[in-house]
């Protein structure tokens, strides 16, 4: 099955939520899917697709513009952040456009989920990720296991605005310590599969690597200070 087949298969089973996106099948031939923020669902339905003051578009590639800033004008550089703004409605003309829109809001997330179903998802553990960093980020690899475990709890998970399910470990023999972040299942809505599918984190993001670099520097300085 292609990714598009997977999407249609899921929709037929009632799939309607990924991240903070709500998919509304309309039964209308010209715009079979509406896509909106999960909190706008009732407003969109009550207004029969013409909610007042909403940004309306049929272009799935508008997803990038809509998702760039939060309602608080914060730059959302990781798209798994739980601060997607509402106030918009996409009226999409076919499943292909729906897939493109989902991919615009949550880049590669649907593809990763499909790969997981297919058994082709390759998860990269943190040490492998850090060890291949070069340039200014090569220092990130010096972070201690304790420091990395701590960072997961300080940076990841819904408490820190990331709605992805962490699949990686520190290394093959070192799972993440139990925490809200490491336990999170990637479905911020709490809906069961297949009504919702999780956002997956197959390797630490660049934000996490950047934080590892900072933490590694702090560890180095603390050690130097202790020796002085």
């Amino acid at each position, binding site marked *: 099955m*292609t*990714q598009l087949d997977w999407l249609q298969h899921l929709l037929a089973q009632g799939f309607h939520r990924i991240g903070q996106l709500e998919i509304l099948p309309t039964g209308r031939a010209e715009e079979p899917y509406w896509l909106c923020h999960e909190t706008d669902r009732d407003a969109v339905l009550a207004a029969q697709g013409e909610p007042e003051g909403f940004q309306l578009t049929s272009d799935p*590639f508008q997803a*990038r513009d809509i998702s*760039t*800033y939060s309602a608080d004008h914060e*730059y959302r*550089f*990781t*798209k798994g952040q739980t601060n997607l703004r509402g106030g918009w409605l996409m009226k999409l003309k076919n499943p292909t456009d729906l897939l493109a829109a989902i*991919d615009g809001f949550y*880049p*590669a997330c649907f*593809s*990763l989920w*499909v*790969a997981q179903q297919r058994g*082709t*998802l390759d998860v*990269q553990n943190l040490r492998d990720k850090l060890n*291949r960093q*070069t*340039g200014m980020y090569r220092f990130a690899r010096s972070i201690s296991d304790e420091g990395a475990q701590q960072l997961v709890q300080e940076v990841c998970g819904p408490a820190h605005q990331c709605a992805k399910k962490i699949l990686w470990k520190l290394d093959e023999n070192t799972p993440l310590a139990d925490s809200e972040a490491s336990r999170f299942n990637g479905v911020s809505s709490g809906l069961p599969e297949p009504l919702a599918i999780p956002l997956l984190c*197959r*390797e630490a*993001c*660049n*934000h996490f690597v*950047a934080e590892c670099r900072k933490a590694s520097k702090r560890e180095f300085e603390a050690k130097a200070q202790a020796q002085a």
Partner: protein
Amino acid sequence: MPIEPKPNTALFIAGHGSTENPDSSTPYFEHADEIRRRGLFAEVHCIFWKEEPSFREAWYLTDCEEIYVVPDFISEGYFTQDVIPRELELTGPTTVVRGKTFHYCSPVGIHPSMTQLLLRRAKEVAPDVDPAQTTLIIVGHGTNLNANSTKAIKDQCEILRQTGYAAVLDTYMEEQPFIADWAELATTPNVVVVPFFIADGLHSYQDIPVLLGIESEVGAAASQREVFRHNPHELHGKKLYYSSAIGTERLIADVILDQIHDFDQQHHSHS
């Protein structure tokens, strides 16, 4: 150069991106939109070093079995020679990675058609100046991570020296000759500065204006500014014209296609 449609093939436009400034990735999406409109590929995706989808996630993005990767980078260097091949697991011009065939093209910045874009941008920003009284400065980043990073600029400047400007200078943020020394480097009354960057991101819109003396401190991101700068700037007894980054030019989409065309010509690959 037009290319034949490749309806079963995906195009990945590889960019840097930023965790601080969303303007950095805007050009890549614009280039992708432009190529999508032409209907040449089954899918067109942007992939990034610092944003999502990451280079490492790119393999999963498409079901197409053949993929062209064009680095939307301005020079051959650290990212195009080290980072992108490493992250995409590419070992040569064409690599089969877990059943998918990747064709790795040269970066947009080194294509000969960039010369015309630079000239066009220089004329747009300073339409009334006499080239004989004008120094054209192309400014790049410069880095000690890869000696090739400045080659594209030097090559372009070599060609641009035949186009009637009194002088054409290559300058850099972090290597000599430094852009901060522009007033000493340029001896003409007019100076046109074109940033050899893909995006109006941190460097071209925030750092270089400070180095030029247009701004006293680093300002907000381009998309967050209400007032755009006005040319010319009267500084050090000269008229300074500063353009937006060359990568924001819409016609970069054509350069991306040119690189695919050249790849096919060189490697006899047709899909």
